[in-house]
């Protein structure tokens, strides 16, 4: 399946932004392009570029129209984009281990997910923690990482009715994505476990713990370790 567009789409967004779209599906190839372009633009320190927001398949570039106009900016970005091939992606390539207690009050939907697939709860936990995940983007709320992809055997649709209150640290599944709620919020993902890690800290730069370019691995832990780690956080 062709996932990358033949050539990236450049779309005006409102009066102060530009969207560079590389594809319309969830794909490692597409996502990689997004993050490489993001990285290259930030290194180039283009005049007037204020902020970039990388997501699954596109990069939103905000600019200050009093510092640069639209056409010259597109020209510069197309020039950078043409040289992307072969660029290294990230300055950092970290493997982050995320301790998780699966099931019970920590993962109220683990039972549903295992019944949905005709698996034991332990098997769901094993499948979930048994592979490395790519960080596609941060979004939804401050510090929420969108990770993928989970094994097909545990991919599960969202809740029919979202919960009003999902606890901070909750680890969820939505179709083939998995993610972690950094703070208490409403949410519709199937919650299978919880981590004591603090995913967002306003005192830190960057404030988000998990970033695109990281590889995330979940490590099943017992309640006791969770409580000990919680005290340290």
């Amino acid at each position, binding site marked *: 399946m062709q996932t990358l567009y033949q050539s990236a789409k450049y*779309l*005006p*967004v*409102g*009066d*102060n*932004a530009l*969207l560079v*779209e590389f594809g*319309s*599906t*969830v794909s490692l190839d597409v996502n990689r392009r997004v993050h490489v372009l*993001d990285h290259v633009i930030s290194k180039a320190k283009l005049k007037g570029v*204020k*902020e*970039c*927001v*990388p*997501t*699954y*398949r*596109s990069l*939103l570039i*905000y600019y200050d*129209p*009093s510092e640069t*106009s*639209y056409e010259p900016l597109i020209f510069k970005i197309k020039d950078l984009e043409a040289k992307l091939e072969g660029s290294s992606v990230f300055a950092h390539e970290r493997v982050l281990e995320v301790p998780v207690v699966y099931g019970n009050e920590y993962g109220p939907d683990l039972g549903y997910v295992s019944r949905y697939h005709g698996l034991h709860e332990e098997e769901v936990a094993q499948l979930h923690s048994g592979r490395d995940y790519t960080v596609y*983007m*941060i*979004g*939804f*709320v*401050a*510090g*929420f990482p*969108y990770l993928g992809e989970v094994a097909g055997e545990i991919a599960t649709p969202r809740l029919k009715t979202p919960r009003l209150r999902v606890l901070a640290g909750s680890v969820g599944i939505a179709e083939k994505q998995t993610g972690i709620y*950094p*703070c208490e*919020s409403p949410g519709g993902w199937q919650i299978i476990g919880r981590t004591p890690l603090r995913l*967002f800290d*306003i005192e830190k730069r*960057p*404030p*988000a713990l998990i970033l695109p370019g990281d590889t995330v691995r979940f490590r099943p832990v017992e309640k006791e370790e969770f409580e000990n780690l919680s005290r340290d956080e």
Partner: protein
Amino acid sequence: MNLKLCEVAKPGFFTTVQDLGRFGFQRYGVPVSGAMDTYAFTAANLLVGNKPNDACLEITLIGPKLLFLSEAQIALTGAAFYPTVNEERVACWQTLQVHKGEALSFGSSQNGCRAYLAVRGGINVPVVLGSRSTYGRGDFGGFHGRRLNAGDLLEAHESTAPLASGFWMPTEAVPEYTGELLVEVVLGPQTDCFTERGLETFLSGVYEVTTESDRMGYRLEGAEVERKDLMDIVSDAIPVGAIQVPRNGKPIILMRDAQSTGGYPKIAVVTTPDVSRLGQVKPRDRIRFSKVSPSKAREGLLEHLKALSMLKGRLVESEL
């Protein structure tokens, strides 16, 4: 140096501390937040001799009651909530001298949704991720990351000197809020998710703002916008002013506290000046959309920025 400014006797409907917003952190999932009506916000600061980005109170629909603990120079702009000091009517869009022990109260607004209270020196709350704006969902920014409650004590920065004389805003620079707004939009970035008929419906319909509207977004009631299919898009970034259309065809305008990413197709994005005007729209107000070309929208933004930078020069000096 900080000054005990006032005690919140009644918080009003929804009162928060805001500045012009938090920039540079959308990539980490942090919304921009900040004043919904940047024009009225900026004017309030200028009327007390502040910098345009100093923190103010944003007051929504029903005003608070504040007991002043020290002398203060303040200004109220935006929607007229019939403010009184010790039960005597005071004017909006001009500098006011308030004395220790006096109570500032508000009625409710007939026209407009939000008022701004600036105080000489600015409200003193910590700068979090580069801004003093409140982000309620993340529990940070503003006053302890939340709206004001009764009993809260607000501080102001003690500025070098109080103003010797005040200012007022000439009438022609004071906007009228009529409850009807024509909103300029740039179509896209996902116009290809909609049928021709859907786009036509969107651009010709009258939409009513529902009560499910807040700083995150405005849900609209009106003609359903037809989509080509009911497939949502793979999530991408949501700029302030984006208009997304979920499967039910009812547009939602995403405002300053909206989440940074989402998966509903976006039919259009409101221009920056009109996002600010939308800050004064309240439930049951009516909105129509009008399409502008991206280049026309950019010209409009430059004019808007120029007008804001010249606003200070339009103030008229007056005795306090």
